[in-house]
């Protein structure tokens, strides 16, 4: 069974974007999008844990009995989160400090558990790794754009550099987090629906041409 990497990529970033379509992992989304830099840090940490836990779970998918799969998945995910914490504290202490409490919370991030349960335990190693990579990329992109918008509107800065003095404090607050999240989901749904409509129309037109072509030939 050949793995379709293009489909996995498209799913991870656009049609099954974990933050904006599957609405998973909302806790770090709402809490860490106050600044764009936080978004990148969290996205990278989650991507790392996703890829490696997907790979290991995919390798062990025949060995883990299905009755204990959830505890086993959480064990594996927790191991990798601890490794990420140790590595960040050693190599990149600034990011470690800015993420604070949310780093150990990655263990219960629904994205990782959901992808482990629904994809990695049923597909091969390479496909699972790719899925982890693209889901992580989708998560990072969503978080970074949300963080950028909230940072520009709520603090008048971007990536820590102050742009202007004007700021609407609402967007830095938790109420603004929910509001921005809702607007992003709506706008993203609008864009993807329009794109998928266009591509569906193209497909139908192409099929029509083929079909009409066949009829003409046979006629």
């Amino acid at each position: 069974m050949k793995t379709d990497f293009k489909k996995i990529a498209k799913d991870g970033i656009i049609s099954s974007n974990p933050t904006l379509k599957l609405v998973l992992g909302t806790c770090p989304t709402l809490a860490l999008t106050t600044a764009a830099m936080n978004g990148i840090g969290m996205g990278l940490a989650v991507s790392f844990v996703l890829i490696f836990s997907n790979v290991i779970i995919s390798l062990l998918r025949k060995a883990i009995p299905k009755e204990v799969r959830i505890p086993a998945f959480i064990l594996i995910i927790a191991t990798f989160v601890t490794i990420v914490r140790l590595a960040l504290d050693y190599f990149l202490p600034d990011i470690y400090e800015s993420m604070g409490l949310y780093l150990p919370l990655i263990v219960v991030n629904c994205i990782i558990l959901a992808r482990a349960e629904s994809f990695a335990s049923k597909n091969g190693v390479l496909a699972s790794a790719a899925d982890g990579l693209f889901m992580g990329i989708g998560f990072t992109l969503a978080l970074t754009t949300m963080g950028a918008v909230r940072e520009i509107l709520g603090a008048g800065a971007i990536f820590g550099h102050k742009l202007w003095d004007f700021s609407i404090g609402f967007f830095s607050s938790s109420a603004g987090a929910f509001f921005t999240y809702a607007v992003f989901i709506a706008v993203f749904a609008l864009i993807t629906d329009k794109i998928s409509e266009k591509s569906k129309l193209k497909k139908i037109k192409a099929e029509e041409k083929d079909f009409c072509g066949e009829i003409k030939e046979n006629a």
Partner: protein
Amino acid sequence: MENNLIYSSSPHIKTTRTTRRIMIDVCIALLPATVMGVVYFGLYALALVALAVAFAVAGEYIYLLIMKKPFKEITREFDFSSVVSGMLIGLTIGTNYPVYAPIFGSLFAVIVVKMLFGGTGKNVVNPAIAGRVFMFISFQWAVGAWLLPAIGSVYGETVATSATAVVDVSKGTVPALSVIDMLLGTGMQGCIGETCKLALLAGGIYLAARKVINIIFPLIYIAVAGLTTTVIGGFVFAFFFPAILSGGLIIGAIFMATDYTTTPNTLCGNMIYFIALGILTAVLRYATNMETVSFAILLMNLTVPLIDKFILNKPFGYKKPQKQKEAK
């Protein structure tokens, strides 16, 4: 042809009370407070209120135009509810706010709280309250010091710039301004519309006379808030009038807590709602030492669906079933 026949379900009652007329009544009731606000705080206050109203109406038009409604139809169906929201938003900020505050507040209140949820009659919380809280959260960094009104105290007293009457009462000291001063709003700091209580009460009496609001409920709210403050302060009755006449309590009680959509449907529910509002306002004022009327109204607005779920309206024509006397 469609416009000549009106098709609706019972009850078939014709009346001249339309939403537009009720909203215009509320605008008229707010006029005395606006005028006194301009007298006290100058033309900048008028600019703030005008901007708030303009952008509230603009918000409604923008939203309906994006939803592809024709411009003529919007104007034909325009009920003045956004004008009322705009006026209230303008009246609940002080002149120490920057000029762009009412713009963003009005746009947020009308577009997000009212139009996105379905328009007039479907707002989830009172849009003016939501706009005020939005401005309060967002623009703290640009707010200067409170300005004193142009007309000083009738008795020649001065108020220290940081201690407003709300803070004084919540800390347990009787404020320096006398009750007459607070009633007239002379020498008192505050938002544009909330200082002259006399004008607000006049508006409230007008609304009660026109049967737009039931005057009992705001009075219950105000009285319960005052009583709770005296109880918290240790049964000191001298707190009662300062507590009632300071801050945004009267404007909140008469104009914002009585919004039709965000109050319960039943008499019993309304009693619970307004009494709870009074207690909540007084307790929050004591706990946080700042003006909490808008936050109390916001919180209670969110509990109204719960109240409506459990305290049900009697169906039209319902009679309690007679208890069966002994069978034999």
